[in-house]
C-alpha cells in the first residue's frame, strides 16, 4: 500500500495555492496561463487520490476529461494572446487594460 491519501490531498492544496498566487502576482499572460495549469493539476491530483481512496473509477474518468478541457482552453487562450499581441505589441496584463480601442 502506498502513502496515506491525505498526504496527496495536502500536497494538492499547496499546489493549488501556489498556482492561485501566481495568477494574482504575475503580469505576463503566458505565465498566468501556466499557473492556471498548476491549479488544474492540483485538482487532478486530488481526483486521483480520492479515486484510489474510495475505490471508484469516476475520479479517474473526470481527470481524463479535465485533461481534454485544459488542452482546449490553452489553444483558445493562446490564440487570444496572439491576436492581442498583434494589436498591442505586448503580452502583459497591463497592455490589455482597455476592452475597446
Amino acid at each position, binding site marked *: 500500500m502506498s502513502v496515506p491519501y491525505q498526504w496527496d490531498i495536502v500536497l494538492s492544496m499547496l499546489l493549488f495555492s501556489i498556482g*492561485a498566487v501566481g495568477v494574482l502576482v504575475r503580469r505576463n499572460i503566458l505565465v498566468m496561463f501556466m499557473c492556471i495549469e498548476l491549479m488544474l493539476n492540483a485538482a487532478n*491530483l486530488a481526483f486521483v487520490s480520492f479515486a484510489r481512496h474510495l475505490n471508484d473509477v469516476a475520479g479517474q474518468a473526470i481527470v481524463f476529461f479535465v485533461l481534454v478541457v485544459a488542452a482546449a482552453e490553452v489553444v483558445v487562450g493562446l490564440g487570444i494572446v496572439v491576436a492581442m499581441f498583434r494589436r498591442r505589441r505586448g503580452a502583459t496584463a497591463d497592455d490589455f487594460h482597455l476592452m475597446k480601442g
Partner: protein
Amino acid sequence: MVPGALFHFSWLKIPANRIDFLTFVFSAAIVLVGAVNVVRQRNPVLAALSLVMTLFGVAVLFVEQQANFLAAVQIIVYAGAIVVLFLFVIMFLGVDREESISEEPLRGQRFWAYLLMALTFVGLLLAGLGSRFGSGVPSVAGTLNDNPAHPRSATPDVVVLGKSVFTTYLFAFEITSALLVIAVVGAVVLARRPGAGPLAEEDDDEVEVEVETAEPEEVST
C-alpha cells in the same frame, strides 16, 4: 464538526513501506520546487520548463496511486503538447525576455496575493479536516479495484477506465470531441491576421503553422 478522515491525525505517521514514502517525498519536492519556480522565474521560457518539472512530478504521483494510464496521458498531453504550445507562442511572439517581477503596478498587490494564498490554504485544510469523504454508496461508474487486498494484481486501470468512459460517460465523451472541434475552429479564427481575406487565399501566413501544430496534439488525447 464531523470527525472526518483528515481529523484524526493518524495519517501523519511515516508509513512502513519506505519505498513508497521516499517516492512520495521526492516527487512532492519536485512538484513544489517546480511550482514555486513557475511563479518566481522571471524568464517565461524557464517558467515553462519548470512547469514541465511539476507535471513530471504529478505523473510520478499518478503512477504511485495506480493511475498508470493517466500518468502516460499526463506526460504526452501536458509535457508533450501543452508546454510545447506554450514555448511555441513564447518564441513566436518574442516575449522571452526577462520581466521584472518585483515591480508593483497596483500598490500592495503582492501582499494581498500572499495573504489570500495563505487564507486559501488554511481554508482548504479546514474544509478537509471537517469533511468525511465517502458515503459508502457505490457510484454508477464502477470500482477501480475489485481486489483491494492485492492492489497491484488487479484489473489494469486502463481497462476499467476505458469501460467507464465508453459506457457511463459516453455522452460526456462525445461532448468533449465537439468541444475540441470548436476550440480548433476558434483558434484558427483568432489567430488569423485581422483584415485578411478568406483562408484559402492566404498563401504565406505563418500564423497558420501554429494552429496546425495545435491540432494533432488534441487528437491524441
